[in-house]
């Protein structure tokens, strides 16, 4: 189960890291890299502290059954939110995330607010980078903590799950840093919507499984029931995308 936690955490974190990277790149290119990297470093330090504090609190204070229901519910909510957005994008009812467009837009905003290239540490640039890392990173922290802890069957496994999820997130950060350093441009080729869809399915499936266990459900096939849930949610989501595309075409035809 740990490899699933690592992979899911990696995929979820990759999407958020790409979005944060776009802003970090804008600040670095428009103002200077010193401000951008200091803001990024501060943001990452705050996020790591949040994982350590909240993760430890949840692991040590709350009983496993209660935790499973609570965290399972949060995973369902988060997963359904991501799944809904991804399905709308696949159906063409919501615009795909365009990192290049965001990059250009943010650059114009910075210039309009008087931000200009300088060799000194720029407070505005630093705060912008910090804010971006914190905003995108909070979702990662949420997933790392909830996913990492939920995978545990015993109290002893909670910390192991948390570490596995954190490892996945760290791998995603390093991947984006390396790719960003090579490409030196917005990472537009990362299939963001596919990743969000996949993570949405994982979060919803695992959330359903653990919330059910928290309520006292004895799933048929135990852990194998998760595979059944993943397949079921995939089929439902595929059906919803097809249905929504048909509806969108009908609405377009009617409006002409």
């Amino acid at each position, binding site marked *: 189960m740990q490899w699933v936690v690592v992979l899911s955490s990696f995929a979820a974190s990759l999407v958020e890291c790409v979005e944060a990277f776009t802003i970090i790149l804008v600040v670095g290119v428009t103002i200077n890299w010193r401000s951008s990297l200091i803001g990024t470093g501060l943001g990452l330090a705050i996020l790591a502290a949040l994982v350590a504090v909240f993760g430890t609190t949840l692991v040590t204070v709350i009983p496993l059954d209660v935790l499973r229901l609570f965290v399972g519910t949060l995973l369902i*909510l988060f997963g359904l939110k991501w799944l809904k957005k991804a399905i709308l994008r696949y159906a063409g009812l919501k615009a795909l995330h365009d990192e290049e467009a965001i990059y250009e837009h943010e650059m114009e905003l910075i210039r309009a607010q008087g931000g200009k290239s300088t060799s000194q540490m720029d407070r505005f640039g630093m705060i912008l980078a910090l804010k971006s890392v914190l905003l995108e990173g909070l979702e990662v922290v949420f997933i790392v903590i909830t996913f990492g802890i939920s995978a545990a069957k015993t109290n002893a496994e909670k910390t192991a799950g948390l570490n596995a999820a954190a490892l996945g997130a760290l791998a995603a950060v390093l991947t984006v840093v390396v790719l960003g350093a090579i490409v030196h441009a917005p990472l537009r080729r990362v299939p963001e919507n596919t990743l969000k869809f996949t993570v949405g399915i994982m979060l919803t499936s695992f959330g359903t499984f653990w919330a059910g266990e928290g309520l006292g459900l004895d799933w048929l096939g135990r852990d194998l029931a998760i595979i059944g849930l993943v397949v079921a949610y995939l089929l439902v989501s595929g059906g919803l995308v097809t249905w929504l595309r048909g509806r969108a075409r009908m609405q377009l035809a009617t409006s002409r």
Partner: protein
Amino acid sequence: MQIIRKSAKAVFDFIVGDARLLIGTILTLAVVALIIALVGSAASTWVGVVLFIALAATLTIALRREVK
């Protein structure tokens, strides 16, 4: 008061983003908890199916509102 309201909205948007998803999920889990309290874990397979169908319906209803 406004700060509390703004913070609550920010947390809500962060975790859920759609009130229908929240209401549907909470209702589903409450109903499943009630069923389990009444029949025990004997009918777990069917209750699991009910749980899945109800959550899938929640997602469908939330999506349906987006195209209306």
